[in-house]
């Protein structure tokens, strides 16, 4: 595994192409591309990112370090050792871990049980950190479906599903839906392979431009249509100048937040909104039976693509690993929490470094992470902010030879949570640039031993691909749209999806490798949709009409 100490070089190589979670679905091509991208950047298993680096990175870190930097002093090591084995094969995770290497000296004598305990402890929190955005997205979709009639009207189909379902016989309809599914899935596969090829041949600019186009269409055109329909439903008049102003502001801020820097909460909100918009498009334009078959097929494809050795997603991950680059960090919802003081405390040796003014060299060193110079300034800010903490801790500064690396480590560390598993520090650094995260990161340190207490405060964010959001919402939205006004079906699908997500995260904690998030949830969702719609609904309706309670 490449040293990321020489990490500067690697970081430099990484163009850090921000791939926002956009599905410029309107242009079907871009849409499909985004779709495949979201499947490509398969960081759905958030717990993966939450874990600390693999032991081998610890080893490298140890070797890479000049002096026995009092490995035991490194508070963060606990985290690293805890993460050992939790790490997936995602390169971006390794990538982010690499900065942590310094601290990844491993605390000797740490009981292995403690590591697992922390995994589990953080696991529950991470599950909830995923439940909330998934629930929000579904609520938006269901609320829209139930109130705005536009999204349940049949107004044609996508070009990817050319076969109509208005046939006379059931068999013909089923055949048509299967054919539609085949076409859709093959388009997705082709797009994914195209993306892998582009990535392999380093056409980063192309991919970057593609995604920008997608998100432009999503944020402007689809929002305009959505707003128009909502206004129509509630019979609210709005003049064009106001509309233009609203959509322009919404879209521009969205582009900035997703592709560049912005408060984490705003970025999350925008990602949820574009996932919901995308899901609504799917719900509107996919015919009924095709939608269900496509959902089933997508989860099978997801399973195959992520777990099979020759799957495109797996190949993409491996390529990224070889190059030690982050895979497309966009299209991923990140609820990155920021490092706490525990990380900052890690390098007593860097205290000296902190006293230095902004070092352009170091900035550049880390600046490779970010495409823009503002990223460098960001590092600087983090440095200066971190400084008082160190002082407060009264840690001894060490010689300057270590200055560079620990501070690099610090910088990377402070960046890492933001870029957390997205492998896109710049993009996520914008998250922490916002107000809320800073105070969290630089919380006043606890006096005394920089021990586990602080480490335990460290939190890692979780990530889930936007494609998962979209397909979960499509399932629940379709249940709401076609469930004949029945709320029970919608709720049953909702609970089923949440349970599937829970199980996926549990499996993640058990198997400790990248897992697809779609199969289990979608399977549960489908089972519960069909059984609730056909079995439970008549039962509950009959009970309700007789006023019986079970």
């Amino acid at each position, binding site marked *: 595994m490449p040293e990321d100490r020489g990490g500067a070089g690697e970081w430099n190589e990484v163009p850090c192409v921000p791939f926002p979670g956009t599905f410029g679905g309107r242009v079907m091509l871009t849409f499909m591309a985004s779709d495949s991208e979201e499947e490509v950047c398969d960081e759905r298993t958030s717990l993966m990112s939450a874990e600390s680096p693999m032991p081998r990175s610890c080893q490298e870190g140890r070797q890479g370090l000049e002096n026995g930097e009092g490995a035991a002093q490194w508070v963060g090591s606990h985290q690293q050792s805890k993460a050992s084995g939790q790490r997936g094969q995602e390169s971006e995770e390794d990538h982010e871990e690499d900065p942590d290497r310094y601290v990844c000296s491993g605390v000797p004598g740490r009981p292995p*049980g*403690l590591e*697992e*305990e922390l995994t*589990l*402890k953080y696991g*529950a*929190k991470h*599950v*909830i950190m995923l*439940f909330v955005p998934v629930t929000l997205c579904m609520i938006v979709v269901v609320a829209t479906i139930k109130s705005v009639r536009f999204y349940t009207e049949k107004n044609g189909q996508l070009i990817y599903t050319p076969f109509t379902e208005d046939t006379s016989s059931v068999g013909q309809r089923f055949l048509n839906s299967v054919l539609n599914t085949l076409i859709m899935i093959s388009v997705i596969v082709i797009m994914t392979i195209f993306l892998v090829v582009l990535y392999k041949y380093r056409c980063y600019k192309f991919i970057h431009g593609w995604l920008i186009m997608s998100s432009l269409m999503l944020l402007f055109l689809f929002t305009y249509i959505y707003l128009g329909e909502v206004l129509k439903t509630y019979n609210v008049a709005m003049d064009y100048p106001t509309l233009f102003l609203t959509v322009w502001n919404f879209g521009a801020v969205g582009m900035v937040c997703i592709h560049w820097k912005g408060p984490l909460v705003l970025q999350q909100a925008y990602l949820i909104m574009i996932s919901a918009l995308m899901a609504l498009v799917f719900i509107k334009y996919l015919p009924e039976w095709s939608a269900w078959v496509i959902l089933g097929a997508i989860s099978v494809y997801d399973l195959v693509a992520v777990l099979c050795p020759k799957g495109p997603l797996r190949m993409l991950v491996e390529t990224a690993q070889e190059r030690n680059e982050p895979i497309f960090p966009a299209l991923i919802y990140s609820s990155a929490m920021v490092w706490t003081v525990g990380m900052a405390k890690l390098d007593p040796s860097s205290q000296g470094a902190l006293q230095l003014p902004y070092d352009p060299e170091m900035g550049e060193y880390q600046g490779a992470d970010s495409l823009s110079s503002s990223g460098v300034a960001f590092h600087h800010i983090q440095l200066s902010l971190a400084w008082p903490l160190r002082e407060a801790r009264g840690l001894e500064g060490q010689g300057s030879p270590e200055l560079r690396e620990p501070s690099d480590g610090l910088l990377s560390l402070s960046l890492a949570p933001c870029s957390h598993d997205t492998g896109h520090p710049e993009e996520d650094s914008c998250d922490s640039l916002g107000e809320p995260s800073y105070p969290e990161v630089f919380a006043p340190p606890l006096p005394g031993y920089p021990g586990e207490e602080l480490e335990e405060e460290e939190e890692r964010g979780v990530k889930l691909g936007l494609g998962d959001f979209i397909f979960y919402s499509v399932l629940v939205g379709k249940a709401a749209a076609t469930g004949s*006004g*029945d*709320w*029970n079906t919608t*709720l*049953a699908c909702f*609970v*089923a999806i*949440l*349970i599937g997500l*829970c199980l996926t995260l549990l499996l993640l904690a058990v198997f400790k490798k990248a897992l697809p998030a779609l199969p289990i949830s979608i399977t549960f969702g489908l089972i*519960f949709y069909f*059984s*609730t719609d056909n*079995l*439970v609904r*008549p*039962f*509950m*309706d*009959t*009970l*309700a009409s*007789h*006023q*019986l*309670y*079970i």
Partner: protein
Amino acid sequence: MTAAVFFGCAFVAFGPALALYIFTIATEPLRIIFLIIGAFFWLVSLLLSSFIWFMAATLTDNKDEPRQRDLLIFGVLISVLIQEMFRFAYYKLLKKSSEGLKSINPGEKAPSMRLLAYVSGLGFGIMSGVFSFVNTLSDSLGPGTVGIHGDPPQFFLNSAFMTLVIILLHMFWGIVFFDGCEKKKWYTLLVVLLTHLLVSALTFISPYSGLNLVLAYIILVLTGIWAFFVSGGSCRSLKLCLLCQDKDSLLFNQRSR
């Protein structure tokens, strides 16, 4: 009907459960997860009982009204039985998982069985209440006149109160049930099952919904008292709580005597 009816009935039925959720469960991620798993277990039990009812209905294939009603009653009884079975299954699952949790993190305090009993009961209750009432609620937003054919006009309010009683009862049953399982007092399980059957049966035995409600609330109070004592409460702790005294002051008062 009006928005007032909608919001009023919604808060009557779900207000206490929402308050319990916000104040006791929403803060701890692990409890939320156990709540949702509990809801899922109830859902699966409902699925199973609907399946059985559906099979029975299609097999008999009789369109007579009394026959349909008999089938429905059969369905209700089977459903209650299956719900209690799934409650037991959830207990077993929690027992196994808490062993696992204990072995994995000895330092970390796993949630106690009592807490899990409460959470699981609440999960069952919320899901049950939501499934019973949410369709009725959404209908109450639309146009219509209640009781135009001679049915009681307080339909929504009755349903709301009945839903509330079911939610709270599930919670108490959960506590009592798990305690019975823990202490191996199997008669407790039987009592819970019979009480549940009684409450459900009340809804179809008596045509007077008012009487049903009153009886159900009496059962609720009794079960609540039982759950209170089972989970470690006592008259003394109740007095402490109501008089807003802390334990020390009470002890001090006693000592000084």
